[in-house]
């Protein structure tokens, strides 16, 4: 079936949650050398919202019921209820509401699941959900004031507030995950992303962004800045391990610090039918779960367990994985848990955050946008998941169904 197939629309229930489209800005490196240095986060988010509406002219702007926009640090250019401000700055009618969401790295994912709940409940028909993080303007943890009780009552090891430390902890817990495996995984992430660029699988979901660094002229950014195609194991072998002397986590096998924004258009099954929108994914289930903050990266495992259980599916039913690569070790702990080879072709076909970057709250929608494109490319896959680890010990997983699959809409 194609996504435009009338049978897809027929197969959708009125209250199904449907992923229509997703876009993102090219990701930049955070800091004064990055492409978005001097640019505002809200302006980045505006580009994505406008592009979504431009690409989907069948969606009248006044039909948008909600703009849910995530950011981890909600101050300055990411403050002032960013979903609302981005809606106004994007030229959406003033009647369209918006709000701000924070679940650190899973911000955009939570924007999607929260609005999905509203769609399923019948409160929304058309929503925009996304996230933005300008880590150059908002360094991780800036302005945070952790409660002293975390330490006094040993609720959270203060070390666990630094994500790199939790990645080292994960290596401790799973000795089978060596630095060599992590580096090998990172090399393949870079290789897969470069191949995806080569095949033109990344570019269609990017909105070009004009930016102007202080003292320079306007530039148009049409590609991600972080990737290092051609990275070899040798390149990674001698990198510094900044979180622990003689550790295993390096800048090479972890996602960087990045700037970027994403946004997705989701509708009810009914609205997709009425507006004639091609359904690119149907949401099957979602779940969030907590783990010990010390090993925050393990979060996707219990989250996926929960989501699979809600969907009545097993891991063997999942044909594609889009897992966020905050750290290679965290992806490997997930794959090892399910007995999936780290080179399994179902996993992160376009590479992942280690190569493309991870502007915290924006990444969830990138995973979904890429999964939607892979669904269209591969109608043999019926189910896919998007999953990610979350600071302070959490994981989030969303399971999606592929409308291109011949059994779409039938009982699993």
């Amino acid at each position: 079936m194609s996504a435009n197939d009338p049978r897809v629309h027929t197969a959708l229930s009125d209250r199904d949650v449907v992923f229509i489209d997703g876009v993102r800005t090219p990701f930049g490196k955070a800091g004064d050398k990055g492409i978005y240095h001097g640019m505002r986060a809200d302006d980045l988010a505006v580009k994505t919202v406008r592009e979504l509406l431009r690409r989907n002219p069948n969606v009248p702007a006044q039909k948008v019921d909600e703009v849910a926009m995530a950011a981890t640090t909600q101050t300055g250019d990411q403050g002032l209820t960013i979903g609302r401000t981005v809606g106004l700055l994007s030229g959406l009618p003033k009647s369209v509401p918006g709000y701000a969401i924070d679940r650190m790295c899973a911000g955009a994912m939570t924007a999607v699941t929260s609005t999905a709940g509203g769609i399923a409940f019948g409160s929304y028909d058309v929503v925009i959900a996304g996230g933005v993080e300008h880590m150059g303007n908002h360094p991780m943890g800036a302005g945070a004031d952790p409660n002293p009780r975390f330490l006094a009552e040993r609720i959270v090891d203060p070390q666990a507030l630094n994500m790199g430390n939790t990645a080292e902890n994960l290596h401790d817990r799973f000795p089978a995950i060596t630095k060599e495996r992590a580096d090998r995984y990172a090399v393949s992430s870079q290789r897969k992303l470069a191949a995806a660029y080569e095949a033109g699988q990344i570019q269609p979901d990017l909105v070009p962004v004009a930016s102007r660094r202080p003292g320079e002229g306007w530039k148009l950014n049409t590609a991600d800045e972080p990737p290092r195609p051609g990275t070899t194991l040798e390149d990674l072998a001698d990198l510094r391990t900044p979180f622990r002397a003689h550790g295993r986590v390096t800048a090479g096998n972890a996602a960087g610090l990045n700037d970027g924004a994403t946004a997705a258009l989701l509708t009810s099954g009914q609205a997709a039918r009425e507006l004639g929108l091609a359904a690119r994914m149907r949401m099957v289930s979602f779940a969030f779960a907590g783990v010990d903050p010390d090993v925050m990266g393990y979060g996707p495992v219990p989250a996926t367990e929960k989501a699979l259980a809600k969907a009545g599916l097993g891991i063997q039913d999942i044909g594609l994985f889009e897992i966020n690569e905050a750290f290679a070790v965290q992806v490997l702990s997930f794959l090892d848990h399910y007995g999936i080879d780290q080179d399994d072709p179902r996993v992160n076909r376009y590479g992942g955050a280690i190569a493309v970057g991870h502007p915290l709250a924006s990444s969830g929608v990138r995973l979904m946008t890429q999964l939607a494109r892979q669904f269209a490319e591969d109608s043999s896959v019926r189910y896919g998941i998007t999953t990610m680890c979350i600071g302070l010990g959490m994981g989030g997983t969303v399971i999606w169904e592929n409308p291109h699959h011949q059994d779409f809409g039938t009982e699993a």
Partner: protein
Amino acid sequence: MTHDFAAVAELMKDEIVTHSLAEEMTLPSGKTIVLITLDNGLDHTKPTTLGPNSLLELREVLTGLKQRAAAGEIDAVALTGKPYFLVAGADLSAVSNLKRAEDARAMAALGHATYDLLADLGVPTFSFINGLALGGGLEIALACTYRTVSAAAGALGLPESFLGLIPGWAGIYRLPRLIGPEAGLKVIIENPWNNNRTLSGPAAYKLGVADALFEPADFLEQSLQFADSVLTGDHVVQRPNTVDDSTVEGAARFQAAAEVSYRFIETKVSGAAPAPYKAIEVFRAGIGRSQRESARLEIDALTEMMATAQFHNTIYGFLDLVQRRSKRPAGAPDAKLARPVTKVGVVGAGLMASQLALLFVRRLQVPVVLTDLDQSRIDKGLGYIHGELDKQLAKGRMSQDSVNRAKALVSGSITKDVFADADFVIEAVFEELSVKKQVFAEVEDVVRPDCILATNTSSLSVTEMGRDLKHPERLVGFHFFNPVAVMPLLEISGTEWTDDSTLATAFSMGKTLRKTCVRTADSAAFVVNRVLLRLMSEVQAAFDEGTDALTADTALKPMGLPMTPFTLLAMVGLPVAQHVNESLNAAFGERFTVSKNLQSLIDHQIKALWIEDQNGQQVIDPKATSVMEFGNNPSSAEQVLIRVQDALAQEIGLLLDEGVVAEPQDVDLCMITGAGWPLHLGGITPYLDQVGASERVNGKKFHS
């Protein structure tokens, strides 16, 4: 002809250089475009301008790009600006400092030498008009092959003719051919001379100035996308408004449009400012010619205009006075001393009082209460205010909510006890000292001791009004000009008792009222009315001596004042003018004559010298001349003009000697903003210097 561009650039060592920041990028189709950002590296409070160094840098960048275009390395070049500006135009202070004709000519030629590269680069050129584009800033866009404009771009226009120049960097040639001669000349002549009106982005797009209009949120991205679609041929630009002046019909339209503009400018300046005439002349001469031929005419014209007094006076009036001096009024005390004004009282509910109340409520947004002797006067005043607010609503200048708010804030009372909690009470009652003193005595019985008392007197002594006050330190002169909503000037005067806090509050209020505040001493009629009345007094005297009415009234035409003396007299009202004459005569003696003839007109209830005859022609009312007595010593128009020039030089000289204002600049600012005197006179004192009056009368110029 070759020009020494480097020499001109060398003269401008202090130029704030607008850099040409070139970035190469690949468009979605794979085409290569170089985008030049014009940026002076400063924030939006410092507009980007083009001086010789800026132009030379751009020329160098474009020259390099032309070579790359020839080598097939690039497919297009585009130009845009820093946020809110494309370019604000030529660097006027730089241009006005060019003393030698060859430097002026080189500057004029440098613009062409630079812009011509954009017009003939070997690859298409684009201008993305992201914001303000005035004068040379719009002309740079016009030189490009294609243009996009942001829906948020404010202020597009060619104001040169108003500033004393012509749009001589090919704007005068390219714009009328792009959007038609009628619209072109509207932008070149009419808009500048109608309060410097400019075009918004959407308006410019509608006229055909730009080929595409995009919203500001992703203007640059969409403009680049547009450029790509034009380069690939996916989008074909349509220009339905272009007119070809090499055809007979086209040339006829150009001629007709020039005629319309000429008549328009005659009514506006009647020959007093050369630049708009020169612009029309160059426009006409360019009909049927090539752009290159026109360029030579433009360079000649610019060189000539840069040498005119009118250009230098305008730059002085516009940059030094209106833009700079008005922002930092001479003699204003520390703004920190200002007290908050949370309620205003207006004594009187007549037309002046109602205008004041309207202004206060709109700008201060605090309760404003008017008092008068009876309810019917108050109702009339409030009715006027409500009516004006409704007009604002109808024009879309105020929302219903803000009109509701304003109406709710204005009230009236027949007793003054409503002033008890006011912070500022201004009187606008009959211009009679005893009346005003009586009013202030009554007000002072009601108000707090620190409530500011202000008088809108035009010619009485503020000091005398304060003499019997219990708290004279809170009295200030606060003199507006009619019509209050339109005229920018506010003359603020203190007495020997007025304290700094009161003055600071007055200046702070004036700023909130968006007025140009000038501090004057408490001297009869302050600045504007004293100068105006002296002028009228001289013309009246010449008339009384036997000069015929038309000669007397049109003798000042070469000055290009906004209206003739007799028209001004009728507008002010003959009795009011005579009343002020009497005050000034009492204060300064016979320099201000109380004309018997004028009194006779008043006694016969004649309101104007000029009336319309049955054919609608302006004629002198025969009834008026019949009640006047004339001497037999007529003057020629030239004699009247010189007499007035000399009188003005004398009066302003005295006024400065008395310390009414600090400097001649203040007099000029007053005349520009309070009387609407033209910028091409520089207000007045530069003109008096230039015609020799200052030296004839005072033995020295006002400006060294």
